[in-house]
């Protein structure tokens, strides 16, 4: 009895599941055929097939399209099976079955045919995915999707968007969608009403649409577009001014960071240290080393590199001071040549021991990208952090020089060495400490620079001239001078660059400094008093 019943049940289950199974198979067959079409199609047809895949209603479609757009959808050469590549580094790639989601382990790159994708397809697929995203619950995600749609709307999408807009509750998303539609209308239909929606928009796609409308044959549309553009242009002017100022400050802060260590060794101690750039380089390499030791935690490694970079460069500085510079006291030309030699030795050492190739220093997530103030003005985050870091370092150094015993002794020794020694200050110890401090700060600069430039053996060379320029311009022996000089040189450079070009801007700044030094040989903030005269 019970056996019969269970048999019956089994039968029913089988019967019930049959169509389901059949359905899944049909789905897989359809999917396989769609993906095969995608793999074989030309670039021009691939977009259409991607659309079909999106409309097929298969819940795996999104994953396929995402993988396709990332260049990670591939076909296994022998079996014709489609796979999603999970890791594409090295010669063997980790893959996953695109249809079943099964992990297939590693397959040699030789046996995989990646389905090729290009820029225009990628933006087409982004558009398709954005439309899917517009129906999700998360308002932020919808907003991002809507932003991505601006400039990518086509006729079919426009209809869908109008529908979606009616049901949209979030005001920001609605406004963005409205803008996206208006861009489409201005560009494709020459709609004057839509021009009004776009006036005042700082979005570059909107501006592009208005720009193309100014070439229209319809005088009313042309006029409206020109008016809208004019109003945008005034807004943009202010944004550009703010942007240039930001660029100037950020370049300036880099100069300040690079130069401030030198302001101590050269400015305060009077040692011409041509190896200063290499001390910066050591700091940058320390950052790289820390990231190698802490894989997967670039942010933590970067923070730990701040003390580590300081220490490494400070120790290197002490070694240089003890081994060479102390014997060349009061002989600037020999010091210059000797330290130049040291800089070459350090560079080649790094080349031989580590590698002549540049090293990758990872930028942590919280330092990449930018803060968007408005559509036309965004502040890049890595630069923002560096401006902050430069100020912190500057304030820290000021405090050390003004408020600590070391600072007092340093100032005493530099003002009058003999007098200071007769007061019981150990001048040699102060020399070492000061040089270590200046070198350590160079290391800090290296840590910061690793985030914006190449970490390689030549890193230091690129900054040594600029550093000397800033210190001399600011006034030797004056930290405030270094700050003001660095920031103003940075700003001047960025003001000149747009119309003079980078090469000429650099030359002009150099000429300006030469002329300035002719007039005021002691720089912006000359040291006063008898000590300075000697």
């Amino acid at each position, binding site marked *: 009895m019970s056996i019969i019943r269970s048999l019956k049940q089994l039968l029913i289950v089988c019967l019930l599941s049959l169509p389901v199974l059949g359905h899944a198979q049909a789905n897989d067959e359809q999917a396989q055929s769609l993906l095969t079409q995608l793999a074989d199609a030309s*670039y021009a047809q691939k977009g259409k097939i991607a659309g079909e895949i999106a409309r097929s209603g298969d819940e795996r479609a999104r994953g396929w399209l995402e993988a396709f757009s*990332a*260049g990670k959808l591939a076909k296994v050469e022998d079996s014709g099976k489609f796979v999603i590549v999970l890791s*594409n*580094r*090295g*010669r063997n790639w980790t893959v996953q079955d695109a249809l079943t989601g099964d992990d297939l382990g590693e397959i040699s790159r*030789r046996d995989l045919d990646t389905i*090729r*994708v290009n*820029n*225009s397809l*990628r*933006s087409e697929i*982004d558009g398709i995915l954005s439309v899917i995203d517009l129906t999700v619950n998360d308002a932020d995600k919808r907003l991002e999707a809507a932003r991505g749609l601006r400039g990518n709307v086509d006729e079919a999408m426009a209809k869908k968007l109008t529908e979606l807009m009616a049901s949209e509750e979030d005001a920001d998303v609605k406004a963005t969608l409205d803008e996206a539609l208006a861009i489409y209308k201005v560009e494709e239909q020459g709609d004057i009403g839509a021009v009004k929606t776009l006036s005042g928009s700082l979005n*570059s*796609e909107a*501006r*592009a*649409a*208005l*720009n*193309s409308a100014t070439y229209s044959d319809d005088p009313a549309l042309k006029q409206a577009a020109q008016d809208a553009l004019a109003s945008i242009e005034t807004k943009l002017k202010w944004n*550009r001014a703010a*942007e*240039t100022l930001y*660029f100037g400050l*950020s*370049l300036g802060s*880099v100069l300040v960071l690079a130069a401030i260590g030198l302001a101590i060794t050269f400015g305060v101690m009077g040692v011409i240290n041509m190896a200063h750039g290499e001390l910066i380089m050591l700091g940058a390499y320390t950052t790289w080393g820390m990231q190698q030791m802490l894989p997967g935690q670039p942010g933590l490694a970067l923070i730990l590199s701040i003390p580590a970079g300081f220490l490494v460069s400070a120790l290197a500085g002490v070694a240089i001071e003890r081994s060479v510079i102390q014997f060349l006291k009061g002989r600037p030309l020999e010091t210059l040549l000797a330290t130049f030699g040291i800089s070459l030795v350090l560079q080649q050492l790094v*080349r*031989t*021991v*580590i*590698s*002549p*190739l*540049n*090293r*990758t220093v*990872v*930028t942590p997530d919280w330092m*990449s*990208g*930018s803060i968007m103030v408005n559509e036309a003005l*965004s502040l*890049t*985050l890595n*630069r923002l952090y560096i401006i902050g870091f430069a100020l912190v370092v500057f304030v820290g150094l000021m405090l050390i020089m003004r408020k600590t015993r070391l600072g007092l002794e340093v100032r005493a020794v530099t003002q009058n060495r003999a007098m200071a020694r007769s007061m019981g200050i150990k001048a040699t110890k102060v020399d070492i400490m000061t040089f270590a401090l200046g070198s350590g700060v160079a290391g800090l600069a290296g840590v910061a620079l690793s985030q*914006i430039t*190449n970490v*390689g053996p*030549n890193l230091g060379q690129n900054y040594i001239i600029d550093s000397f320029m800033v210190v001399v311009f600011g006034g030797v022996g004056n930290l405030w001078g270094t700050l003001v000089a660095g920031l103003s040189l940075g700003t001047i450079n*960025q003001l000149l*660059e*747009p119309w003079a*070009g*980078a*090469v000429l801007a*650099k030359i002009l700044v150099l000429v300006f400094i030469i002329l300035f030094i002719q007039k005021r040989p002691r720089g912006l903030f000359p040291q006063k008093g008898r000590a300075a005269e000697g």
Partner: protein
Amino acid sequence: MKIKKQITAGLSALALSLTVSVSAPVAAADEGPIKVGILHSLSGTMAISESTLKDTMLMLIKEQNENGGLLGRKLEPVVVDPASNWPLFAEKARELLAKDKVDVIFGNWTSVSRKSVLPVVEELNGLLFYPVQYEGEESSENVFYTGAAPNQQAIPAVNYLMNQVGVKRWVLAGTDYVYPRTTNKILEAYLKDHGVADDDIMVNYTPFGHSNWQSIVSDIKTFGSQGKKTAVVSTINGDANVPFYRELANQGIKAEDIPVVAFSVGEQELSGIDTGPLVGHLAAWNYFMSVDTDANYDFIDKWVAYTGKEDAVTNDPMEAHYIGFNMWKEAVKKAGTTDVDAVKDAIIGVSVPNLTGGYATMMPNHHITKPVLIGEIQDNGQFSVVWQTPSTVAGDAWSDYLPGSKDLISDWRKPLHCGNYNVVTKSCGGKSEVAAE
């Protein structure tokens, strides 16, 4: 441990080059080993790019020796280090030819170093294989250009952008030296020939190693938001590219909006950056590491085995050396001697397989035939080929788009035997370079 290994490797390389240059015996021709000079910077700025080429040559020579050498003789590498110092290149080339009596030189990267070596190899009648893409406007009897001339890289890339992507506005950005300046001059003339207005071309030069790209990138952004599809053609050289691309990513310029096509950015340059934000930016080369051919996969396997690094990358100039070395080898076999004049005559017309599944042929103007590939940057630091020329393109020594050089041709076969023959005046210019600057 790893560092120690590298130190010992460095030391042994040093020792090798020392013994090689010190103990160079004066060998009579056709006896003893065949000497192959390698003239690549192992220190200084260019070490980043050139040291890999030295290793490539050492690998090729080692492999050839394992296969029985050439003409029954062993090949012996003579490595010198010109230290990224242009005048030193000329001295080292003289040392290789006069003192070490090498049979052939593979070397140089920058154009300025090639120009410095040129008079030396011409005076001492040497052979130089130059593996890097360059600005053209040169043809020397003693130099074989295995890298791309502008018509094998820049012009096809611009064509791709113009016809396939629909670009209307152009930013020509480059480092301030001879290669970008000449290439951009050619491109500007070419674009204007194709109806691009002056206003739609923006030219920008930056110094070597430029790292502060903020305002330039912002300018490009503004230039690109005028309603016409815009692209950047970049001849930015060396490591200035890393901060440039980083700034592009930070300012939110995506390849879909303003694609950047670069002529100096290869796999090796990309190995220094996180390419996630750069996906879709383009490069034009004659070879990519990602090319799907067995010859290429075998080459990569050999290279990985030789360097001992699983993540070692290959790039276009390496392929150029691979082709150049094989061509020279075939020419020596054909001539039956390493005598420079015999090899020079024998090599014209020699065809060897390249790594992209085709053949490279040495043309009478000392340039070779190459396919042109356009690749998009992927997130793994590789390129995915999106377009390529249907057949190979023969390198053109003298650009057809510059007024000074469009009437010039180069043919080193007899009876013409001239590097800059003017087809209008029917005379040989007599000098090996005239029009470039």
